[in-house]
């Protein structure tokens, strides 16, 4: 029974793969329908898709200018000096 379900509506492994593929490529009509049906029956994969998108947003926000721990002034001076030297 489970095997038939997987052929018709995908396994969770395959469903999560399509969820990722969807972020980069257009799914075929068949893939779209299978994924839709799968998610209707599977909370875990529905959570996965929401969270995958959240993680995408989080990574886009990533670079955080407040986390600078180096001595910025010394760093700048150093760069300026190097630029002088290579002139």
């Amino acid at each position, binding site marked *: 029974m489970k095997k038939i379900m*997987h052929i018709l509506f995908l396994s969770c492994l395959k469903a999560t793969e399509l969820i990722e593929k969807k972020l980069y490529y257009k799914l075929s009509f068949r893939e779209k329908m299978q994924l839709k049906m799968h998610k209707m029956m599977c909370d875990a994969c529905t959570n996965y898709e929401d969270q995958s998108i959240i993680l995408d947003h989080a990574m886009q926000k990533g670079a955080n*200018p407040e986390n600078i721990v180096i001595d910025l002034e010394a760093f700048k001076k150093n760069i300026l000096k190097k630029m002088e030297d290579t002139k």
Partner: protein
Amino acid sequence: MTKEKHDLAGWVEEYAGELYSWATYKVSDDELAKDLVQDTFLAAAEKVDDFKGNSSPKTWLFSILNYKIIDVYRKKVNKTVSYEPSGFSDFFDEEGSWHLEKRPKDWHDQDDNFLDDSDFQLVLKACLDALPEKWGVCVRLKYLTKKNGDEICQEVGVSPTNFWQIIHRAKLQLRDCVEKNWFQN
């Protein structure tokens, strides 16, 4: 004496910090990030005559830096990116169903406020750093370049089929790591 020289010094003053934090985030290596930013300004000094002012200096500097970061990635990957089907067993049984304890749980996040939480970003960064290098490279490249899948594939020399499968693997691990370290604490 020239106007360019004056501008460059000003750009160092104004943008070095931002360029540095961006580079650190992307390569996860402070010393390497410093070198990249320094190289960026040296390259900028060389090419400043080519800078026509079509874009802002900041955009121009960032594009030079990004190019150098991609170069670092390319060397790291060194055409050895490959897709290893093993390891899915951490998440799925042999029929492809979630292991019970690995099923994505409800995060109960009605809003995305936690995305701006610096502690959350630290967890995310730690989880990114914990990815095997070649997966991490693919994931970072995506957010660095904002390119589409096919272009990134060309960049690192993987086939498009491999690309989302690598991302799939990386995301499974990343999601699991974030859930463990942020949502269950």
